[in-house]
């Protein structure tokens, strides 16, 4: 083996870099360069001299951390972040709870119609977020909604689903509808990879399906729960499409509803790309800090579990 490797060593050594060249070039052009440019812009601002007329009147100058201190004091950005926090506190537990429940049900014995229901629950994954928000948006309109229709027939008051507190539920429902199926598949896949022998002894001892689910299945799929939790948090922080799509249907979603909408609004609505760049950098930093913190915590837990297992 060593002789063949050394004979062709140049070709073999260079090959992986050749295969990775397209990805590297694309990464440099469409990831690294834009990120670097955004960070650069976040430290810049425009100084307007005189009346701001004429070609030399607007000049880009160094701003230091000025854009960052402004962004941190911006109450709109803070409120957007708090709204997304509230929204995430509904979406993540409900979506993952349902995904786990459905995955366990699919994995249970003697369940009927499993292929059909699995496909049906996964189906929203194929529906664009914009279209999902649009469908639900119409279903929330009092004149169209079956909920309002039913409440009306019962003589009960019909809450406005697109305002105040219910708006959070309305938006959260769109995300739950769209994301449950994908997470269900991820959890279900790891459930199926548990060898059957693991359950046999428990079943012989007369454990009920519920006990098997709680004491064997859920602990064994914990790694995939961690993974889905992590990706759900990231997706929640980035919510943009759904509130943007609901905007034309209601006045209570403002242009800075979520932090990313605020970034978009500052960049293209107010044409202040410098402020937008600083806000974007802050959001990216928070995302990265959360991700690494979370992954480290998950790793530490794993190691502790392994060492405890060794002691036992």
């Amino acid at each position, binding site marked *: 083996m060593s002789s063949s490797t050394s004979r062709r060593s140049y070709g*073999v050594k260079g090959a992986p870099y050749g295969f990775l060249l*397209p*990805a590297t070039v694309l990464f440099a052009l469409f990831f690294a360069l834009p990120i670097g440019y955004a960070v650069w812009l976040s430290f810049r601002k425009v100084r307007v001299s005189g009346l701001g007329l004429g070609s030399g009147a607007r000049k880009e100058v160094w701003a230091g951390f000025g854009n960052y201190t402004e962004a941190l004091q911006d109450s709109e950005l803070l409120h957007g972040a708090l709204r997304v926090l509230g929204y995430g506190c509904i979406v993540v537990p409900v979506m993952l709870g349902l995904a786990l429940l459905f995955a366990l*049900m699919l994995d249970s014995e003697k369940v009927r119609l499993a292929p059909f229901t699995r496909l049906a629950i996964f*189906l929203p994954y194929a529906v664009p977020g*914009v279209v999902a928000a649009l469908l639900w948006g119409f*279903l929330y309109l009092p004149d169209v909604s079956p909920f309002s229709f039913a409440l009306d027939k019962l003589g009960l008051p019909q809450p406005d689903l697109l305002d105040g507190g219910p708006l959070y539920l309305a938006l959260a429902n769109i995300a739950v509808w769209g994301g449950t199926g994908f997470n269900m598949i991820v959890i279900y896949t790891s459930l199926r990879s548990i060898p059957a022998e693991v359950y046999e002894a428990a079943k012989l001892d007369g*454990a009920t399906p519920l006990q098997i689910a709680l004491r064997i299945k859920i602990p064994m799929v914990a790694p995939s729960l961690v993974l889905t939790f992590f990706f759900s948090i990231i997706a929640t922080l980035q919510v943009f499409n759904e509130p943007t799509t609901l905007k034309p249907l209601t006045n209570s979603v403002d242009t800075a509803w979520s932090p990313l909408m605020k970034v978009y609004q500052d*960049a293209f609505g107010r044409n202040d790309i410098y402020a937008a760049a600083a806000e974007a950098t802050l959001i990216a930093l928070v995302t990265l800090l959360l991700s690494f913190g979370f992954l480290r915590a998950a790793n530490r837990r794993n190691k502790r579990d392994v060492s405890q297992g060794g002691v036992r």
Partner: protein
Amino acid sequence: MSTLTVRKAAPAAGTTPGTAQGPPLRRRIALVPTATLLLGAVYTLMPVAWVVIASTKSGRELFSTFTFLPGTGFADNLKDLDAYRDGVYWTWMGNSALYAGLGALLSTAVSAFSGYALATYRFRGRETMFNVLLAGVLMPPVILAIPQYLLLAKAGLTDSYLSVLLPQILSPYGVYLARIYASAAVPADVVEAGRMDGAGEWRIFTRIALPMMIPGMVTVFLFQFVAIWNNFLLPYIMLSDDEKFPLTLGLYTLLEQGSNTPALYTLVITGAFLAVLPLIALFLVIQRFWSLDLLSGAVKS
């Protein structure tokens, strides 16, 4: 270790032996799981059923008849949608197919190259490159898209097909899946045997490794196709000429105009119905070949 876990669960279970011999019906069909899953399916299918029904309603029926009562205006709605701005809707659909089809094809190729290299070669900087590529997943799309827009504007490329196509070719998730799949599906000794026979590295990849990677690459293609077809933000930022819009952006602008002219609502709904159809059809046809397991990174070697 697993038997230990089981034995721990057993004593509590042993106290209720009666449940194991429940009524015969409950033993043949698991009622609770089946009912739960059916409820879930009703929830997920409800909006889809609604859009199918609503697309048959005329503008007046939409706001006056019961939600799930079919209307009489499907043919008219189709005709109106077709007539809207000289059939721009079909241009949007064609654009979506172009962005998603070509983009996913290129993306799969790049992922296959990278995944193969990361899985089969040992070289300096391998893990660093992999981790840096993966970190791309964490970048919020808006945060990338705005500087991408500003940079493409400097190159005079905004508001073009390329401005939507190019930024979506590199998919960190695609590279990740391709690496996992290649390391499971392409045995190292097969690659080594190819080298013994004097085949070049490119030849080994195209003739030996790539055919073994095909099932995984189908998954990467479909995943990326759905991601690009569903993307809204990037075209929203890059494009202003509605002849280049994909469906998502086109429908959004229709909805936006609809808030002033509710007559457009029926067009939005019919358009949404037709936009969902191709992907659902795609799903039903290919779900046999699509290994969903791979989406979660699970590979059977």
